[in-house]
């Protein structure tokens, strides 16, 4: 009676079967995401076959998780949308074995993930205005643009390139809005990433990020695309997002908030005048308050220092760990801060079973021109984000819907959205700053700072699965 056809488990971790940039990051300077349509299915299959063969000719080889001795000039990886798998010739039955979120695709899940109003898929520019034609997102990471151009030319021989998105890494891991990003990632069993050595958060089973292994939800196994050994194992899902960040509006809001706060009766509980010096040279009380607002909204100071363990200054002496802290009932890090919403760690939450279960891997790069706060402009810039996890519904969507928006995890924030990322409007937005005396000051009137400008749910197959796809016929 028990269903045994599915859920044979992967027993051995084989990095050579897993695409790179999933369980460990690359740290390249440049990325180009090529948005591809399968226009000639035979050519597409030939390309895929070459990309995983020992002798790929001039076709770029798909980069694997296997450690490299010398860092290559570039890396090549590939993700397929549901439409893409269909175009490559997966049977109806196989297609139906994929989870519903993926089958429906990002644009149909819009309301769930906050893509309405200015973020609605109907407003997205090409190529994302035609989601049916977005078949593949191939990502080239490289040390320089020239090698990216070369790879694009080769890809274009086998696919119709319907759009590209270029990203780059800013100095010191910064992103638009000036925060350092890429600090917290789920640590995984079997994977050694030296950058995570000092992170003392509990280790996650591989099933958080790869299909076919035990998951973080006790006893639960996620279902696999069929045939599972050939197609499902060692694959994962990705929410690729083009997120535009309105830097000018963000900086303006910080100034407005600081000016209002300076007049607030409780300002001494937020920043006593004598503590301005903790912010370092050149800071006024107003500029320091701006930084406090930015830090509380995110959960880290813009230099990456956690607000939880260093609530008084971005420059704690002695230094504090960037990764090791937890939240509690008396935390100074606001419950509504972006980072605490996205990963409440062991802190109190309504869904007792969900602590530490909705982890995702984030791989993002900045797009658009540099922003100079002293000469604000309204050019489009933001984040090309990959939000990766074995189950889009249980991880990415669960975070977006209940936690980043809505704020279901804690009664004090329910009904409010993430101050940085949420689907806010000036009329209804609110965010509670925490004070030294345990009190709060409520900020209001901030707009939606981040809007979606495109994206797709993709399946990142294993190397074996790419081979399987290339062998399809018909």
């Amino acid at each position, binding site marked *: 009676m028990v269903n045994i056809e599915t859920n044979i488990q992967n027993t051995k971790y084989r990095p050579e079967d897993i695409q790179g940039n999933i369980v460990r990051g690359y740290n390249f300077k440049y990325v180009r995401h090529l948005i591809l349509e399968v226009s000639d299915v035979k050519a597409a299959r030939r390309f895929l076959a070459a990309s995983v063969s020992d002798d790929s000719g001039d076709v770029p080889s798909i980069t694997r998780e296997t450690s490299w001795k010398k860092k290559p000039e570039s890396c090549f990886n590939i993700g397929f949308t549901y439409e893409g798998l269909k175009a490559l010739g997966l049977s109806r039955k196989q297609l139906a074995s994929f989870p519903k979120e993926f089958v429906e695709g990002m644009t149909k899940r819009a*309301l769930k993930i906050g893509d309405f109003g200015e973020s609605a898929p109907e407003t997205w520019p090409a190529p994302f205005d035609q989601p049916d034609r977005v078949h593949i997102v191939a990502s080239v990471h490289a040390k320089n643009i020239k090698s990216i151009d070369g790879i694009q030319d080769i890809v274009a021989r086998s696919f119709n390139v319907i759009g590209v998105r270029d990203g780059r890494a800013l100095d010191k891991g910064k992103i638009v809005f000036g925060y350092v990003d890429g600090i917290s990632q789920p640590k995984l069993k079997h994977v050694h990433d030296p950058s995570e050595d000092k992170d003392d958060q509990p280790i996650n089973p591989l099933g958080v990020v790869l299909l076919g292994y035990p998951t973080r*939800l006790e*006893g639960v196994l996620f279902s696999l695309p069929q045939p599972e050994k050939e197609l499902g194992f060692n694959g994962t899902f990705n929410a690729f997002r083009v997120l535009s960040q309105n830097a000018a509006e963000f900086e303006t809001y910080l100034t407005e908030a600081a000016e209002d706060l300076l007049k607030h009766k409780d300002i001494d509980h937020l920043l006593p005048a004598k503590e301005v010096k903790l912010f370092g040279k050149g800071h006024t009380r107003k500029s320091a308050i701006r930084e406090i607002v930015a830090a509380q909204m995110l959960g880290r100071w813009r230099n990456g220092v956690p607000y939880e363990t260093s609530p008084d200054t971005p420059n704690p002496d002695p230094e504090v760990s960037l990764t090791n802290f937890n939240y509690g009932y008396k935390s100074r890090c606001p419950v509504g801060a972006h980072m605490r919403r996205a990963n409440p760690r062991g802190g109190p939450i309504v869904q007792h079973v969900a602590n530490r279960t909705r982890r995702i891997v984030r791989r993002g790069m900045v797009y658009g021109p540099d922003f100079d706060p002293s000469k604000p402009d309204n050019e489009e810039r933001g984040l090309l984000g990959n939000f990766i996890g074995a189950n889009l*519904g*249980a991880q990415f969507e669960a975070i977006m819907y209940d936690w980043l928006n*809505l704020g279901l995890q*804690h009664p004090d924030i*329910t009904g409010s959205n993430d101050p940085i990322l949420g689907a806010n409007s000036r009329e209804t937005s609110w965010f509670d700053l925490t004070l030294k005396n345990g009190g709060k000051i409520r900020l209001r009137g901030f707009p939606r700072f981040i809007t979606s400008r495109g994206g797709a749910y993709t399946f990142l197959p294993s190397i074996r699965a790419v081979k399987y796809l290339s062998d399809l016929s018909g």
Partner: protein
Amino acid sequence: MSKTEGWFARYVDTLQSRGWFKFVSKYIVVPYWIWRAPKPKLPGGPRVSPQPSDNIQRMMNLIMPLKDPSPIGRATAVSVVAQNVDEIFAGLDNVGTVHFARFLLLDDKLCMISAYDGDFSNYIRDFIVTVGSVFDEIMTQIDGGDDLIPTEHNVEKFIEWVHEHDLFQAPDYPTHMFALQDEAIGREPNKPPHMIQSLPRDLILQLHANPNISLGGGYRSYPGFTAAQVRDKFGVGW
């Protein structure tokens, strides 16, 4: 479309008021129209909304057909629920987003009615994580339930199954139904706009696809608060 909007359409629109014709319409006209312009079954449960207050205190009306609808089978189903009461309480506590849940036995169906906060899939998934064994036992009594056991290994499938067996919640304003019907067949809602006169016809056809529905999404006598907000306010811990 224009042809079908002619005399026959107008005629069907008046069906409900033609008492003497009800017999014929029931056995000939409606079946013909169902064949002519079938409506897909509309999905169950509350719809996603950008409005935070629409996303809390949401209703689930899960209607599960019993495998054995005889008095013996019905009695077994009742005892399975009764034996799991402690686990159900533990589940409610750990899931944290449920206001209340109750079971009804109606003819050959076991129903689970609940009010919960937030996302439906998270609610069901979290329940499986906490008390999957309860659902496993209940599913042994349900027609088609065996394919879903153990629920912990069929999470996605189980969530879909519950979604399919959750009653469609008809909009409070009947005309909003048009938009949902359009969406279900992949059309842009209300383009072109629907004739209000066709509402009775569309409702009849929809009730063929969704024989049991919930009229509206439930009414509240006070604004929506989450279970945790209520517990917090009354100091009973959350």
